C-alpha cells in the first residue's frame, strides 16, 4: 500500500479505488462493526456456559423477535440522527401509528394490509409534523420532539380512552408466533430486509446521499443544490414510518394494539433507540451512519438484556450493565482508532 504517493497526476492507470478497497478490507477487522461482532460472540459463549437454555430454540426465537423490535427502534432513531437531530418521540409515534392501524381494522373494517399501510403512513405524517416544525422554527429537534412526544401521546390516549384494540385478525398473532427453520422469527427477517433497504438508501441512492450531506453540513449542501429543509423533513418521515413498523411488530407479538405497549409517553423505547445507533458508530453530529452497526448494536443490547435476565440478575442491574457497555464501547473505539493511527504511521 503505497498510499502517500498516489497522486492522480502520476498518469498511471491504477485506479485510486484500488488502494481504497484493499484498505477497507483490512480495516474491517478494526472497525466498530467487527468489534460488535466480537462482543456478540464473546457474550454468546459466556451466556451459553453460564445459563441453562440460552441456545434453546425457544430462547433463540424470543431473542430474534425482541431484537427485531429493538433494531427497528434503533433504525428509526438513526434516520433522524443523520440530520444531526434526535427524535425523542419515537415511542409515541410508533404507538400512535399502531393504534391507527388497529382502529382502521376494528372500527372502520378496513382489510388488514391496507390498515398496516395506513398506520405506517400515519407514522410518516407525524414525522412530517416534527420535521416541518423543526425546519420552520429552526429550533433543535430535541425540543420539538420532546413537545410532540407529549402531544401525540396525550391526544392518542384521549381519543382511544386508553383502551386497546384486541379484535385483530389472527394473521397478526400468527405472524408473531411463526417460526422459520425452527427458531427464526419472521419479524427478524422483516427487520433485516428493512435494514438492507436502508443501507442501500444511504449508499446507493441520490436521496440517501443528499440526506447525509444535508446532515453533515447544511450550508455546503444548500449551496450545492440540495434542499436541506426537505431532506430534514423526509428524514423525520422515514423515522415515523420505521417507528410504526416497530410498533406493529409489538402488536404482532402481543396480539393487540395497546396504548401502553411502549410505556408512559413511549419512553421505554428511548434507551434501545439510542444504544443501537451509538454503539454502532453513528455520529451524533449527523452526516454519517452505519446501518450494520446499528443492527449489531441493537442486537447486542437485546442479547445482553436477555442473558442477564436469564442469569436472574435484577432488571435494575441490567440497566447498569447497559450503561457500562456504553462506556466500554466508547473506550474500545478510542483504542481501536489510536491503534489504527499508529499502524499506519509505521
Amino acid at each position, binding site marked *: 500500500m503505497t498510499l502517500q504517493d498516489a*497522486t492522480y497526476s502520476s498518469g498511471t492507470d491504477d485506479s485510486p479505488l484500488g488502494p481504497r478497497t484493499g484498505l477497507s478490507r483490512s480495516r474491517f477487522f478494526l472497525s466498530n462493526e467487527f468489534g460488535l461482532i466480537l462482543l456478540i460472540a464473546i457474550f454468546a459463549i459466556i451466556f451459553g456456559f453460564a445459563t441453562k437454555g440460552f441456545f434453546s430454540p425457544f430462547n433463540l426465537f424470543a431473542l430474534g423477535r425482541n431484537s427485531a423490535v429493538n433494531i427497528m427502534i434503533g433504525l428509526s432513531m438513526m434516520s433522524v440522527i443523520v440530520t444531526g437531530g434526535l427524535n425523542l418521540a419515537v415511542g409515541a409515534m410508533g404507538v400512535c401509528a399502531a393504534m391507527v392501524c388497529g382502529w382502521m381494522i376494528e372500527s372502520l373494517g378496513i382489510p388488514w394490509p391496507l390498515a398496516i399501510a395506513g398506520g405506517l403512513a400515519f407514522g410518516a405524517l407525524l414525522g412530517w409534523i416534527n420535521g416541518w416544525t423543526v425546519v420552520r422554527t429552526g429550533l433543535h429537534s430535541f425540543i420539538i420532539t420532546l413537545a410532540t412526544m407529549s402531544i401525540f401521546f396525550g391526544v392518542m390516549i384521549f381519543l382511544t380512552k386508553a383502551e386497546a384494540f384486541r379484535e385483530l385478525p389472527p394473521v397478526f398473532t400468527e405472524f408473531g408466533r411463526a417460526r422459520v427453520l425452527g427458531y427464526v422469527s419472521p419479524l427478524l427477517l422483516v427487520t433485516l430486509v428493512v435494514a438492507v433497504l436502508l443501507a442501500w438508501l444511504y449508499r*446507493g*441512492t441520490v436521496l440517501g*446521499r443528499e440526506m447525509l450531506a444535508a446532515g453533515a453540513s447544511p450550508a455546503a449542501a444548500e449551496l*450545492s443544490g440540495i*434542499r436541506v429543509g426537505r431532506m430534514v423533513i423526509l428524514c423525520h418521515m422515514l423515522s415515523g414510518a420505521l417507528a410504526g413498523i416497530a410498533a406493529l411488530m409489538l402488536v404482532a407479538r402481543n396480539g393487540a394494539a395497546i396504548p401502553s405497549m411502549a410505556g408512559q409517553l413511549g419512553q421505554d423505547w428511548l434507551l434501545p433507540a439510542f444504544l443501537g445507533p451509538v454503539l454502532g458508530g453513528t455520529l451524533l453530529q449527523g452526516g454519517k451512519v452505519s446501518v450494520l452497526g446499528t443492527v449489531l448494536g441493537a442486537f447486542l443490547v437485546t442479547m445482553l438484556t436477555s442473558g442477564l435476565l436469564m442469569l436472574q440478575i435484577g432488571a435494575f442491574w441490567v440497566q447498569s450493565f447497559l450503561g457500562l457497555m456504553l462506556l466500554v464501547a466508547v473506550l474500545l473505539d478510542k483504542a481501536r482508532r489510536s491503534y489504527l493511527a499508529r499502524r499506519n504511521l509505521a
Partner: protein
Amino acid sequence: MTPIFEAKGIQKAFPGVMALKGVTLSLLPGSVHALLGENGAGKSTLIKVITGVHQPTAGTLLLDGQQAQFHNPRDAIAKGIGVVHQERNLFPRFSVAENIFLEQIGSSYLTPVDYARLNREARRWLDALELDIDPATPVSELSVARMQLVEIAKALSLQSRVLLLDEPTASLTTSETDRLFQIVRRLRDDGTSLVFVSHKLEEVQEICDRVTVLRDGANACDSRSMEGVTRHDLVQMMIGRAEGEGAWRARDTSAQPEVLGLSGVSTELGHRDVSLSVRKGEIVGLYGLVGAGRTELAKSILGQSAVTGGEVRVDGKPVRIRSVFEAIHTHGLGYVSEDRKTEGLILQHSVLANAGVPIWRKLGGALGTLTDGKIRDAVLPYLRKLEVKTPSLAQTAANLSGGNQQKISVAKWLAAGVRLLIVDEPSVGIDIKTKAYLHELLRELADNGTSILLITSDLPEMIAVADRIVVMDGYRVTGELPNTGEYDSVSRAVMDRIHDMGEVG
C-alpha cells in the same frame, strides 16, 4: 547572526501520509522568512509542529539555542511564538474583541471581563491594520477577508518574538496586503522574526529576505538569503521545472446571446441599481475591494437572499429564483464559494463524496440509484487535471492540505456541467502550477460555451482570465472595461474606477 529559532530534522507522519520527512528551518531575528512549496508540500504541517499544534514524530526544536518542546499551542505562545494559521480559528459567535483577546481573557477566571477596556485595546490592533470594524461585532457577521484581518490583529496583539503567517494574504486585495506589509516591515525592524507563507511570488519577493522551499515534505532549499534568487529560481525549486506562460488571448463573444442579465437590481442586502450581463461563453470579471458586495450579489442571484427590485434575466427571460436548488437544477447556475470550509466542502465526508454533490441528480438512474463508480468517472478527470493530492478518494476532505481542499471545491463545479458558473475567489491557497491549470480550465470551459462570472481579489488573475471586467464598490457597479490582457494599463484603469467613488475600505 545567531538564529532565534531552529527546527532540525522534523518528521511528521499522518495515517497514510508522511507529511514531513526531516525538514530543517532556521530563523534570524529581524528578518522575514519565506516558506514556499506546492499544495501539500508540508508548509502548514511544519508551522503546526513549530507552534505546538502537532507533536513531531522525530526532530528537535531550538529556541535561542536551547531545546524546546511545546505540548500545546499555549506553550508556544508563552515562549513568544505567535501564529496566524491558514484555516480560520475564530469563534463565530464571539465579538471581534473577545476573539482577539481570547487567550488573555482566559488567564484569570475570576475577575470579570472589562469590556470597555477590551474593546479599546482591540481598537488599537484593528487601527494598526486600518480595519474599520466595531470591536463588538460578532465575527460571524464578517466576510472571509475581514476574518483573516481579525486573525492577524489577534496575532499582533500577542507581540511575539517569532510570528508565523500561513497564507495571511490569501483572501486579501492589494491595498490590504500593502497595509499588512507596512506592519510586517515595522515588526521586522523592531527585531521580530517573521515567517511568511504565500503562493503569490510577487509578494514573497517584495517582503522576504530569506527563504526555505519545501517539496514533498523535504527541503528543496534550507534557510538561504533571498539575495540573487529570481522568481524563476523559486519556481524551479518548488515544482522542479519552469513556470508555464499564461496564454491570454482576446475572445470575441459579442455575437453570442445573453445567458444572465441584471438590470437595475437591488437586493435586501443593500445592492442598488446593479446592471450586468454575461453572454454565452463569456468570462466576466467582477472586481472590487473587500466589502464591495460581490459575494453578496452572487448569493442574491442564486436565490439565497431576496432581490427586491429590478430584473434578473436568464436566457433573456425575466426570472425569479427562490432557492439555490432552482438556480442549479432549473436555470443551470452554479456557485463556487469563497469559503471552502463551511460552504464549499463537507469536511467530514470523503473526497469522492464532495466532488460529486452537484451532479448526483444528473447521474442518478431509475429510482435514484447511484454508484461510486459513476461518480468517479464523472469527477476524476477534473481532480486529475487540478492535481488533487490525496492518499485516496476515500480520504476525509478535512485531512487534505488547504490548497487541495480548495481544488476539490472548484473541481466539483467544473464537473457539474452548469451553463453559468459564478466562481468566487477560486484560487485562494492554490499553488502557482495548479493556478495556471485552473485558468486554463476556466477558459476551456468558456470556449465550450459555459459562461463564467469570476469574482476575484487577485488582479493578476482577473487580467489573466477575464474577457471583460466589471468594477463594483459599495454595493454598486462603478464601471466596466474590456480586458486587454496588459497588466499595467488594465490594473490602472480598474483602480481608477474604484477610486472615482472616493476612498472606501
